[in-house]
C-alpha cells in the first residue's frame, strides 16, 4: 500500500502558483526525501497532505484515505518547519496536550524520546531556543508511533550531534516499518539517509527515484588539471573552470571521453560519481535551459 499518493495535485493561492500537477507516490516503509529550493512547493505539498490547506484540483491520499480527514491524521506525525507552541506552557504540558488531542497516553514513549534528545520537560516553551523547540516538535510528531511521519525541514536549528541522534531515531522507526517523508534543501542529508527522493522546482515534480539511481546516473563528475577549457565533445554539462582546473559532468560514452583526453596536456584526472547536490543543480539548470 502507498503511504502517500497524489494525482495531478494542484494548488493555486489566488493566481499565485503553489504546486501544479504533482504526481507523487511514497510506498509504505519508505524513507523518502523531498528536495527543492525555498518556495518550490515542498511546504504546499506537505500542507495539503496534513490537511492544513485544500488543493485546487487533483487528489491526495494517505494510506488510501483522503488527506486531512481526522482518521487520516491519526496515522500521521507531523513536524512543521516553523515551530511554535502556546505561550506560558511547559514542555511537559505541550507534549501531554498533543497526546491528549490524540486521545492516547504516550508517557512512556515521550519520556524515552525526551531523554534521547536531552530535552528538559520542566522548562517553559518561552525559555527554549529554536533547537529545543524543534525537539518538542519532534517528540510531538513521534510519541504516538504514527504509521507515517511527515517532517518539514526537520533538522534546521538542531546542532550536528542532535541531527545525528534525530536521524538515528528516524532510521530505527523506519526499520520498525514507519514511513518517513521529510523535506529538506540540504542534499547531503537526503543522500545519506533517504532511500528514495523527489525533486520539486517551481511547483513541478522534476524527478522521483531511488536515491541510488539518482546518484548513479550514467553521468560522471570529471575533474581535469592542466587545461583551461573543457574538451569539445557532446554530453558535457555543469562546467566550472578554475585556473588550469576544469570540472564538469559527463553523460556520454566513456570511450569518447578517454579518446579525447588522450590528446590533451592533462596533468591530473579524477572521475567520480557526482553527489546529489550536483545532480540537483543539473536538474535545476537543465530546466532553466528548457525554459529559455
Amino acid at each position, binding site marked *: 500500500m502507498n503511504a502517500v499518493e497524489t494525482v495531478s495535485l494542484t494548488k493555486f*493561492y489566488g493566481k499565485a502558483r503553489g504546486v501544479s500537477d504533482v504526481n507523487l507516490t511514497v510506498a509504505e516503509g519508505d524513507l523518502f526525501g523531498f528536495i527543492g529550493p525555498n518556495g518550490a512547493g515542498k511546504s504546499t505539498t506537505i500542507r495539503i497532505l496534513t*490537511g492544513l490547506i485544500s488543493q485546487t484540483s487533483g487528489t491526495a491520499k494517505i494510506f488510501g484515505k483522503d488527506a486531512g480527514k*481526522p482518521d487520516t491524521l491519526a496515522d500521521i506525525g*507531523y513536524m512543521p518547519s516553523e515551530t511554535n507552541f*502556546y505561550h506560558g506552557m511547559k514542555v511537559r504540558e505541550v507534549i501531554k496536550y498533543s497526546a*491528549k*488531542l490524540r486521545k492516547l497516553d504516550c508517557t512512556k514513549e515521550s519520556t524515552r524520546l525526551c531523554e534521547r534528545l536531552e530535552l528538559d520537560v520542566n522548562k517553559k516553551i518561552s525559555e527554549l531556543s529554536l533547537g529545543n523547540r524543534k525537539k518538542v516538535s519532534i517528540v510531538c510528531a513521534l510519541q504516538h508511533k504514527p504509521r507515517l511521519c511527515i517532517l518539514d525541514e526537520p533538522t534546521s536549528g538542531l546542532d550536528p550531534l542532535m541531527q545525528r541522534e534525530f536521524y538515528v531515531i528516524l532510521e530505527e522507526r523506519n526499520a520498525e516499518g514507519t514511513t518517513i517523508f521529510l523535506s529538506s534543501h540540504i542534499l547531503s542529508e537526503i543522500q545519506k539517509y533517504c532511500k528514495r527522493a523527489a525533486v520539486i522546482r517551481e511547483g513541478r515534480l522534476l524527478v522521483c527515484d531511488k536515491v541510488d539511481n539518482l546518484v548513479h546516473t550514467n553521468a560522471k563528475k570529471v575533474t581535469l588539471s592542466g587545461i583551461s577549457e573543457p574538451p569539445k565533445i557532446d554530453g558535457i554539462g555543469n562546467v566550472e573552470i578554475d585556473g588550469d582546473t576544469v570540472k564538469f559532468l559527463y553523460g556520454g560514452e566513456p570511450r569518447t571521453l578517454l579518446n579525447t583526453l588522450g590528446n590533451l596536456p592533462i596533468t591530473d584526472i579524477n572521475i567520480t560519481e557526482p553527489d546529489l547536490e550536483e545532480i540537483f543543480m543539473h536538474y535545476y539548470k537543465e530546466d532553466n535551459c528548457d525554459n529559455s
Partner: protein
Amino acid sequence: MTILKHEIRQGRNSLIIWTAVIAFMLGVCILIYPEMSKQMDGISEAFANMGGFSAAFGMDKINFGEFIGFFGVECGNVLGLGGAFYAALTGISALSKEEREHTAEFLLTHPISRQNVVAQKLVSVILQIIILNAAAVGITSLSSLIIGETPDIKPIMLMFAAYLIMQIETAAICFGISAFIGRGGLGLGLGLAAAFYFMNIVANLTESSAFLKYITPFGYTDSADIIADGHIEFKYLVVGLVITVIGICAAFWKYQRKDIS
C-alpha cells in the same frame, strides 16, 4: 473536551483580570449608593431633565434616586461596556490566535475535525462569559446586602440576562469574524464593541436613528426600558439572536474550508 479545558486554562488570566475589574467597579458603585442617595434629592430631577444627555443614558425614563434606577444606569455602563469589550476580545481571538501565534499547524494536524475545534472554542468563549457574569451577579447581591438594599429581583435578573445575551451576541459576531481573519483583529473587536455601545446612545438621542437599536446588541439591554416595561424588548432581542446564530454559523462554515498558511 481537551481543547475546551486548554482554552479555559489559556484564557484564565484574562478572565480573572476582567472579572476582577468589572466586579470591583460594580461593587464600588453599589457601595457608594447610600452616600449618593442622600445627596440625590433634587439631583435626580436634574438628571432627568438634561434633555438629550438624559435620554442618551435612559435617565429620563427611570428614577435615578431609587436604587434600581441608579443600578440600571451604573450597571449598564460597567457590566455592559466592560463585558462587551471582554466578549469581543475573547470572541475575536478564539480562532485567529492560533494563526497569529502559528499554533494552528500544531493544533489542526491532530486527528480532530475543524468543526470539533470550532465547537469547543465556542463553548469555551461562552463559558468564560458566563463565569464573568456570574461573578457580577454574585458581587451585586453581596454589595446590595451590605448596603441593605433589597431591590426587585425580576428587573435586576432581566437586566443581567440581557447583558449576558448581549455579550454572547457580541462574542458570536467577533467569533464569526475570527474565522475569516488570519491574524490581528483585537483592535477590530474592541472597535466593534465600542461602536455598538455608541450606536445605542445615538439611537436613544434621536427618533430618526432609533433603527440602530436593531443593529446593536445594546439595543435590548437598556435598563430604562427593562425596568419600565418589565421585560426585554422582544423585537430587538429576536434580531440579536438571529445575528448570534449567523455569527456562529459563519465561523463553522468558514473554518471548515480555511487554508492555514
